[in-house]
């Protein structure tokens, strides 16, 4: 049964051989980037273990943690925007998907880490 009240968005996804070539070269570039970032992350873990940079809670380890988080967000952004094609979707959809994380997860992390330090201080005293 063909329904004329449904807009078939799935058919608009089709592209030509030419466009496919371009998309594939973009995919391979992103693959290279994700691999390089992973290698850098492992190299940091290999050459700068936590025990050598001052242990948990030290400034040296804090710097490495921050570096890891920046690299993670970079990787996540490329996976979401290129592999999941969210970068090609409408702005409203993109915001609807990403804002819950930016608001709720950051808030949750802030609350839990603050509380964790309080719990830790309570156990120490």
């Amino acid at each position: 049964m063909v329904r004329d009240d449904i807009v078939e968005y799935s058919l608009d996804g089709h592209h030509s051989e030419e466009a496919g070539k371009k998309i594939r070269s973009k995919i391979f570039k992103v693959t290279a980037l994700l691999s390089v970032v992973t290698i850098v992350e492992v190299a940091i873990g290999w050459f700068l273990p936590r025990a050598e940079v001052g242990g948990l809670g030290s400034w040296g380890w804090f710097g490495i943690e921050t570096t890891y988080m920046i690299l993670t967000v970079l990787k996540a952004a490329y996976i979401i925007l290129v592999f999941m094609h969210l970068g090609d979707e409408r702005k409203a959809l993109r915001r609807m998907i990403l804002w819950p994380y930016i608001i709720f997860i950051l808030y949750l992390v802030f609350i839990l880490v603050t509380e964790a330090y309080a719990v830790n201080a309570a156990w120490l005293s």
Partner: protein
Amino acid sequence: MAGAASKEIDSATLWGGGYTSPFSVSYGKLMMWFFLVSDGLTFGGLLSALGFAKFANVNDATSHWPTGEEVFTHLPGTHAHAPLIYVALMTFILIISSVTMVLAVEAGHRMDKKAVIKWMAWTVVGGLIFLGSQVWEWSTFIAGYDGDISTWADNGTLSHSPYGGQWVMGVDAHGHEVKQMVTYGPTLYANFFFFITGFHGFHVFTGVLFNFLVLRNVIRGVYHKRGHYEMVEKVGLYWHFVDLVWVFVFTFFYLV
């Protein structure tokens, strides 16, 4: 990717009602995104809880919270000290299977059935290799005799583990002399390890299942007859999400 979303339509028309989607996506794809948002919040909650447990035990002097480079140090078939290399390989396998998935989606947009079958098959293979790697990881790094951390607490059901361990003579609550398993290492870390990687592994397992079923339909020509390969795109979204979660698990469990 081109598609309906790149067409210029003013927002009054987009949001003005009628039969068009304001997001210019099909129902199935939108629902997959909704599911992924909720599932992502679940993983966000799990990883935040891990952060809570970790920072509540932040002092190296009074309690020790291990890092990945201290725990995940082995490679199969060798005794060399190789911190993080095994999990890096697992990460790489998952990234590559994500790449083959996006190549299958791309081939689907060109209605290239042969290429879709090829890339979907490789994606299934990559997922199975990842699951197999996780079996070795689970049985080696924490529970295994060769691991740096034991999960055996004062738990009688676990003390009969086949992986070995250290027995000592002790006295139980009734005054009887019994063999007891010596415990060492933070079990909280191990609990989080098995819960988070287990929850993720279950997602990988489901993803492999979905991919396999869709691959079967592709081979049977279901989507070719339908005129579009959007189903490949939808399971692709799920599969990329699994990879995305692993990126975060890799950082927050293995690296920091």
